[in-house]
């Protein structure tokens, strides 16, 4: 199998072969064969009487030591994955909330509120009195309100209940899946999946959906608070792929998920003293901050920081031999980076107390002196630059232009240029007319199990041709950006005529001198609720619930437990949700059936598992056709 379809990545893979530096794909080969029981979700290590496995073909054991069946095991495994994803997004959101509180209390001077309008809007939505109160007071109340969301409350999570349609809230109440605390629901999930608690697969799956809705709340909170502290993204043109790493500059990569430190580094990069120091060190180009993975998306859309590469190919940035420092926070950071950095001069710097890597340098992040720390990290990069070995430098000359930063607010304001009184109308009219056949949100990761980007690119080509507007977050964004799908040119090349007309009209009106790109960059993977916000606005405007809109979601190359959580809430939100990797649930007929069929009766959304990208695209188009018919639109 090909490892990637990205030329820059392939170049670095070839280099790794020559230099005998094993990368993620080599380790995957070494892992083969992977365990079939794990692949089917049929192993359990929840107690010390295990590990237990169930024979999916019926000849061997059909129950674990405790009597857990395949259905129980698979449901528990999925539940724990969603709990882990929820904990991750929740942790990210809590970190933002604490920083907002410190900002409001004057303890984090480097983090002023940068988007007051958003602060007020979120506060009002959350039932906080704004009026003529000061920004600091509102921010403090909102931060406390946010922190209250983590413990068990008597009321539903505000960030879930106030951000979806009324119809969704009623559906969630009906099925008893309304979460009342983000951390508490994760804790509850750990409890109910431990030895001898919940054995009913359907009950477990409903609990899983409740947990996933807490994940939704955590994601939404993280996005809201990031916008408040760093500004709500607006489209900005930058570039993507390894070619953004510069031979003549001190290259510092920010990698991970949270904007808290990466935004500081992006700011500090223009610090004159530091730029001079870099020049003195022999880098005429000064300081070049590049992004990797989702923290890369955060600074890409707010600070035009170019994106070097995405999650699965994170190691290749170091392989260029020109990366002087890689500074990481948390999530999707491969422990392998330390070993690869050792083969070069690159300084790997961990920053979070909960995420350390042996052999990496550690500069523990402190919100109170974040700006100073950012400068310290850049200085580390400058001194590393002096150790560069010119013979090892090999930067693939591949980049693509990328217009990033289509927050929900940005999309609405772009539409407002067309119709100031009723911004959603042009979009809804286009959907009704079929110029926008449907909307598909691409989310998730890159995986070694698929040639990197292959599924994304195959699917987007097919969907854009069929006039489907594509939204993207996380490493889906990275894939489309690296392949040029976030440039206006791509619209001309790939969009169907209807979609081209719409994107051109909006783009021209917004003063872009050309169409909007066929794929709108909505942010990092924590930002998926931005897409939900747009869908909710459309649904409310039309007076229908989300499960009737020709909107779908797809994670064609998923990896993480966070992706499982997002996929699950997308289903609960009423979206047909495609997975391009068979998830570890196929060992249970019941669970597979609930996820792919029964969920539809309960929530309107359901999973579609299809490894073939073209078949997957057709399956999504089919769901859109069905829903368009349901709305009385041409199919």
């Amino acid at each position: 199998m090909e490892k990637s379809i990205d030329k820059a990545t392939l170049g670095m893979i070839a280099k790794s072969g020559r230099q005998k530096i094993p990368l993620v794909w080599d380790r995957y080969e070494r892992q083969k064969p992977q365990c079939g029981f794990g692949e089917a979700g049929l192993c359990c290590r929840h107690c010390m009487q295990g590990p237990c496995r169930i024979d999916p073909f019926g000849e061997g054991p059909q129950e674990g030591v405790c009597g857990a069946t395949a259905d129980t095991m698979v449901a528990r495994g999925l539940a724990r994955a969603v709990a882990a994803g929820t904990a991750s997004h929740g942790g990210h959101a809590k970190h933002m909330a604490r920083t907002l509180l410190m900002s409001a209390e004057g303890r984090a001077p480097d983090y002023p509120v940068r988007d007051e309008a958003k602060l007020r809007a979120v506060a009002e939505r959350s039932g906080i009195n704004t009026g003529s109160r000061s920004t600091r007071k509102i921010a403090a109340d909102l931060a406390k309100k946010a922190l209250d969301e983590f413990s068990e409350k008597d009321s539903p999570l505000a960030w879930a209940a106030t951000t979806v349609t009324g119809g969704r809230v009623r559906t969630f109440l009906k099925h008893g899946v309304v979460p009342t605390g983000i951390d508490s629901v994760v804790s509850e999930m750990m409890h109910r999946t431990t030895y001898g608690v919940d054995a009913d697969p359907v009950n477990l799956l409903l609990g899983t959906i409740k947990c996933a809705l807490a994940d939704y709340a955590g994601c939404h909170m993280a996005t809201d608070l990031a916008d408040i502290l760093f500004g709500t993204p607006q489209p900005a043109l930058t570039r993507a792929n390894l070619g953004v790493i510069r031979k003549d500059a001190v290259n510092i990569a920010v990698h991970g998920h949270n904007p808290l430190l990466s935004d500081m580094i992006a700011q500090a990069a223009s610090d004159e003293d530091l730029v001079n120091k870099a020049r003195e060190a022999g880098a005429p180009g000064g300081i070049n901050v590049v992004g990797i993975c989702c923290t890369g998306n955060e600074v890409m859309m707010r600070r035009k920081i170019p994106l070097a590469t995405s999650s699965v190919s994170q190691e290749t940035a170091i392989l260029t031999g020109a990366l002087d420092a890689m500074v990481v926070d948390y999530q999707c950071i491969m422990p392998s980076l330390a070993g690869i950095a050792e083969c070069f001069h690159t300084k790997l710097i961990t920053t979070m107390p909960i995420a350390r890597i042996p052999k990496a340098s550690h500069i523990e992040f402190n919100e109170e002196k974040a700006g100073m720390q950012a400068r310290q990290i850049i200085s580390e990069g400058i001194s590393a630059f002096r150790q560069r070995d010119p013979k090892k430098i090999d930067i693939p000359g591949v980049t693509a232009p990328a217009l990033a930063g289509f927050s929900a607010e940005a999309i609405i304001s772009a539409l407002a240029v067309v119709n100031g009184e009723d911004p959603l109308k042009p979009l809804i009219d286009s959907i009704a007319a079929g110029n926008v056949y449907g909307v598909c949100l691409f989310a998730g990761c890159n995986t070694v199990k698929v040639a990197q980007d292959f599924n994304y690119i195959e699917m987007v080509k097919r969907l854009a041709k069929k006039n489907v507007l594509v939204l993207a977050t996380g490493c889906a964004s990275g894939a489309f950006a690296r392949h040029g799908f976030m440039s206006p040119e791509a619209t001309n090349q790939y969009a169907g005529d209807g979609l081209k007309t719409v994107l051109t009209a909006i783009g021209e009106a917004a003063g872009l001198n050309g169409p909007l790109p066929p794929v709108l960059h909505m942010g990092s993977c924590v930002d998926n609720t931005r897409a939900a916000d747009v869908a909710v606005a459309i649904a409310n405007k039309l007076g229908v619930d989300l499960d009737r809109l020709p909107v779908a979601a797809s994670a064609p190359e998923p990896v993480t437990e966070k992706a499982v959580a997002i996929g699950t809430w997308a289903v609960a939100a009423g979206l047909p949700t495609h997975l391009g990797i068979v998830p570890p649930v196929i060992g249970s007929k019941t669970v597979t059936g609930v996820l792919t069929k029964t969920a539809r009766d309960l929530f309107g959304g359901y999973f579609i598992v299809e490894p073939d990208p073209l078949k997957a695209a057709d399956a999504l188009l089919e769901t859109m056709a069905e829903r368009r018919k349901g709305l009385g639109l041409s199919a």
Partner: protein
Amino acid sequence: MEVIYVRPERCMGCRSCEMGCMVQHSKAKSLAGAILGGERPRKRLFVEDADGSRMPVLCRHCEDAPCIKACISGCLYKDEKGFVRRHKEKCIGCWSCVMLCPFGVITADPENHIAVKCDRCHKLDVPACVASCPTKALVLRDVEQIPAEKRRRLALSETTGREVA
């Protein structure tokens, strides 16, 4: 001739070999395909537990195979590569081979009412169980590469069913 050589000290008891065997003997030839297709392929080798020591036990394709001698219907035969195989359609389900296999690796398929045994994945270069083993507890070895003494012991253990010192 290549034989499947077992290194019990490397066996983790993960049963990946059994899984690989079942998948290879399914119609779909993939785990997901076989499960979703509702197939019930049967394994031909067995990871056994001997009080904490684990080892995969599988057909040795014995030189002087007791199962072939036991077969009363002409089902079992030795193919040109020396693999003990079945003419499936000739099996009458008398279980004589099950009765005489000293390794206990021929089993009764209750659904199709025929004896099931290892066919050494004769169409593959590397048998599925060997390919599935993450710790290389199962490896393909040329019989000539196995030291003569070990070979003698293997041969004796095959005929007597005992590990010979």
